[in-house]
């Protein structure tokens, strides 16, 4: 029995179609686990916010809405550039894949940079949870807000860092022409991941920054 080897088609799949369906389906299933991973944190958020509404509002007022809003725009922009990278892969423009992913990294990096600025402000003001946490207002348990804030945004940022790491691997591969219109599952699968990370932020921003607006 002769083995026919198509480029980019793993031996255990019968067709590109099957390989592609498996890759996407796997990604979606993985994203379902991610939803539940963040779900645990959202659950803690819900419980503690309903137990300490004043403290959460007070903590939220400490966050910088302008920086948060800019970051939201930056991330949405990065989803656009990612979608353009996927499109470039579909039409087989290898250099454009690399270029749009590069733009995505730039925007993601901007987001993380702004996050560092925000974090350092908070640490400077003594709002990092732990024995050195200080709070002068009348509200009790504001530290819990910052527990939740740092955990949620920290894990979100970790997901972005991992995403940037993966793009740094994908870009040279794209440049070398590894991804063809028939076979570019890594690019499209990664696109799903990146959009998911954006969507998490879309929930985090109002839940953390906009508690006491209006």
């Amino acid at each position, binding site marked *: 029995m002769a083995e026919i080897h198509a480029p980019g088609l793993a031996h255990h799949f019968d067709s590109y179609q099957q390989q592609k369906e498996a890759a996407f389906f796997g990604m979606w299933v993985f994203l*379902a*686990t991610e939803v*539940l991973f963040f779900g*645990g944190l959202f659950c*803690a958020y819900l419980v503690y916010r309903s137990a300490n509404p004043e403290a959460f509002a007070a903590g939220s007022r400490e966050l910088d809405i302008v920086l948060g809003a800019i970051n939201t725009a930056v991330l949405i922009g990065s989803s656009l550039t990612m979608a353009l990278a996927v499109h470039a892969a579909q039409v087989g423009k290898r250099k454009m894949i690399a270029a749009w992913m590069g733009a995505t990294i730039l925007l993601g990096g901007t987001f993380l940079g702004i996050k560092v600025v925000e974090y350092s402000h908070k640490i400077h003001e003594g709002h990092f949870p732990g024995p050195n946490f200080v709070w002068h207002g009348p509200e009790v348990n504001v530290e819990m807000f910052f527990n939740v804030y740092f955990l949620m945004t920290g894990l979100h940022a970790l997901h972005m860092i991992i995403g940037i790491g993966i793009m740094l691997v994908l870009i040279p591969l794209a440049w070398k022409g590894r991804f063809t219109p028939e076979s570019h599952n890594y690019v499209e699968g990664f696109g799903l991941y990146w959009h998911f990370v954006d969507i998490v932020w879309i929930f985090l921003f109002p839940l953390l920054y906009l508690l006491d607006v209006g």
Partner: protein
Amino acid sequence: MSELANNFGRRLHYLNADYGVKSWLLTRDHKRIALLYLASISLFFALGGLMAVGIRLELATPGADLVQPDTYNRLFTMHGVLMIFLFLIPSIPATLGNFLIPLMIGAKDLAFPKVNLASWYVYNIAGLFTLWAVAQGGVDTGWTFYTPYSTTYSNSYVVATALGVFTVGFSSIMTAVNFIVTIHRMRAPGLTWFRLPLFVWAHYATSLVIILGTPVVAVTILMVAAERILRIGIFDPALGGDPVLFQHLFWFYSHPAVYIMILPSMGVISELITAFTRKRIFGYKFIAFASVSIAVLGFLVWGHHMFLSSQSVYAGAVFSVLSMLVAVPSAIKVFNWTATLYKGSVSWDTPMLYALGFIGLFTIGGLTGVMLATLGIDIHVHDTYFVVAHFHYVMVGGAIMGYLGGLHFWWPKITGRLYPVFWSKFSAIVIFVGFNLTFFPQFLLGYLGMPRRYHVYPADFQVLNVMSSAGATILGVGYLIPLFYFFWSMRYGERADRNPWGAIGLEWMTGSPPPTHNFHEPPTVDWDAYAYLPDTPGGTGEAWDAAKPTSEAPEHG
């Protein structure tokens, strides 16, 4: 010399296709990865067993004469952590599931072979974290890591262990994603959902539980670690946290996790019962859907671990009723297996002994679960040996029985060798006797009021405790015997042919051991699962087997 034979003219299969350490450590073959897992989990099973020896030795006398109280706490904690997270959760899926699912559905491999290999490495890294914790002195919180003890007061290696549990979750998730995608996308032509072996259905349901539950415990454990490292108070009431929230999050995973442990075993039992009664399984669809409904309902009952935790009585009542509902699909399975036995031509081979043992012991474990789910009873026996006996009946008497039964059933397929009949039956009986002697007295002890997790007890309880410790010794011997003859059989065992049990299923149509890509000709399926009597002419598996085209290459040399 063709591609079907190796340099010595022997039939080429996955074990002799390639030699050397590298060919194993870098393999992407699901069958080899299954064996790598088998080696790793056996190691942790042995270690967890060693801790159990310590526990049972200490409890042989009422006083505290063997170990310090603090050491005792670490012993039972490490026993639980190793057995649950590093042995029982991966046990059947990572070994038999990994090996058999592609074979049973006629695929060349799992959908993501590299992820599969990576999951084994992740598992071992998790194992190293846990061993590191053990080497430093272990943990004393109990496998449940209840806060704020675990986050604030415990002077043991909580973070290292938590890291182990966190990491091993990823390897489970990798395996589960692989299974789900493989079962959806890679079935052989003609193999519809309702023609799948029930083993595959069971693993599908298990994988659903894994992907939906594991991430929650992962993030919960992360919060515990963050709380301990940063000295913050997510679950510490002194700092405004809520320890009961931890319990909710923990049991939201850990109750479903008991189904991660039992469902694969139920899948094995369905295969064994049909193969050794030569009958189609009674109520195929009921069993298939029972697996899925156990997976779904299993997510709605976690509160039965928290009846005494300040949870409201209304929540308690709802969780109580829902827990009893979960017992319904479990009972459906037991009834269907029993109905399959009825008027079957039962043969008493070793795997069947395990299957029958499973049915009896799981029934006892499940029924006592219903007792515990009854609010009024649980208030009295919560945190007593009654609970300990309950979960050992389901986990050791159920899940491990199924695991061993499965290993004995598919061992000839995995290694191409048969093991000694006498010794294997002998050890199955020793295990059954030893198990009951170990754990039945614990029901009585708990009912009489002996609390769990104490190293001393009133002298009145000694007789039952000595029985339990004696039983544990017998059980230990029972587990050691297979270790010896399995190793022995790999070298000296008689060669197995393609289908030593005359069983029906795609895995029996290819060689023992199978070739690297599983089938020489990709199979097509036009029959239902377990097409034994009366559906097939001739009636027996052997006749069916002879009538089907084989996918086996001719023997060379």
